[in-house]
């Protein structure tokens, strides 16, 4: 499967760089303080172009989840089943992120269950953000 990489336009470069440092960052407007993710060129609230990145705790809660049984890519054949979660980040304006929930894939997942980010380093030179129950 192709390795994830920052987009050529550099918009999400800081996110991937931070992940390598085991830091979770979210885009934040320097003008009005609004968080947004994935990163955009313009603040959706006040429309300024002056955007930066803000380090957050990496703690969140499960907003939604699903259990995947069908490998959408051959490389995922041995990975199924696995659980995908949408995680809400209370310290980043409740912005949400998608990731895998590590651990027993057959476990029951509760809405609002507390989770924390796990940084998974890959030899190809990138780090993925996964989640585990806190």
């Amino acid at each position, binding site marked *: 499967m192709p390795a994830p990489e920052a987009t050529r336009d550099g918009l999400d470069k800081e996110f991937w760089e931070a992940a390598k440092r085991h830091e979770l960052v979210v885009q934040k407007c320097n003008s009005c303080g609004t968080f947004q*993710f*994935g990163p955009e060129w313009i603040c959706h609230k006040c429309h300024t172009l002056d955007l930066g990145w803000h380090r957050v705790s990496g703690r969140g809660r499960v907003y*939604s989840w699903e259990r*995947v*049984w069908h490998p959408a890519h051959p490389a995922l054949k041995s990975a199924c*089943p696995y659980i995908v979660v949408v995680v809400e980040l209370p310290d980043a304006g409740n912005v*949400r992120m998608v990731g895998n929930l590590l651990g027993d894939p057959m476990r029951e997942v509760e809405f609002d269950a507390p989770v924390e980010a796990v940084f998974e380093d890959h030899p190809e030179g990138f780090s993925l953000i996964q989640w585990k129950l806190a």
Partner: protein
Amino acid sequence: MACYHHAQFNPRAIMYGRPLTREAYDESRWIVEPFHLYDCCLENDGAAAVIVTSAERARDLKQKPAYVMASAQGSDFRQGAAAENGPDYATSNFKTLAPRLYAMAGIEPNDVDVAQVYENFTGAVMTSIVEHGFCHPDEVMDFCTFENLTAPNGKLPINTSGGNLAECYMHGLELIIEAARQIRGTSTCQVKDAEISMVVSGPMVAPVSDLILRG
């Protein structure tokens, strides 16, 4: 189940001659929980086309025309953000569009005789039905019964050719064609005297679109 039922009358449908039982549906493998195999649309090759022309030119054409009563495209606030960050996460995305569509057509939901409702996955069909005012969210399980959703006598027959689940997956274009057939009276699951025929596009994306045809 309604889609597979309708496909059994449609010789063009991929699932023609391959009826689906409730047991086979329940026992089919998971794709992504909560969706089983038969909750997901087909994948197939194919082609479809629609001719759009003026009412004046349509008069001289061989087929009975279906007139565009209303068509609308749009989405809700921030639905252009990454899918997981739309503030209204579980919407089909028709909450602002559907009222605009009905206003344009000058009709109410209960005026609709037959609808083609895009099913990439079954779950969002229910949300689409609710957001188009066919029933209240609390009533959706009672509304979405086999009897209500099937032609010729259902309250709101949907996907009368078999739809994305059982006719073919032409990315919804086949739904527009079926909506026109209902106006012409040439559907293989014809709704009697269908005058107002609706098409609801793929849900949960931005933008979404709607179409209402009339005879």
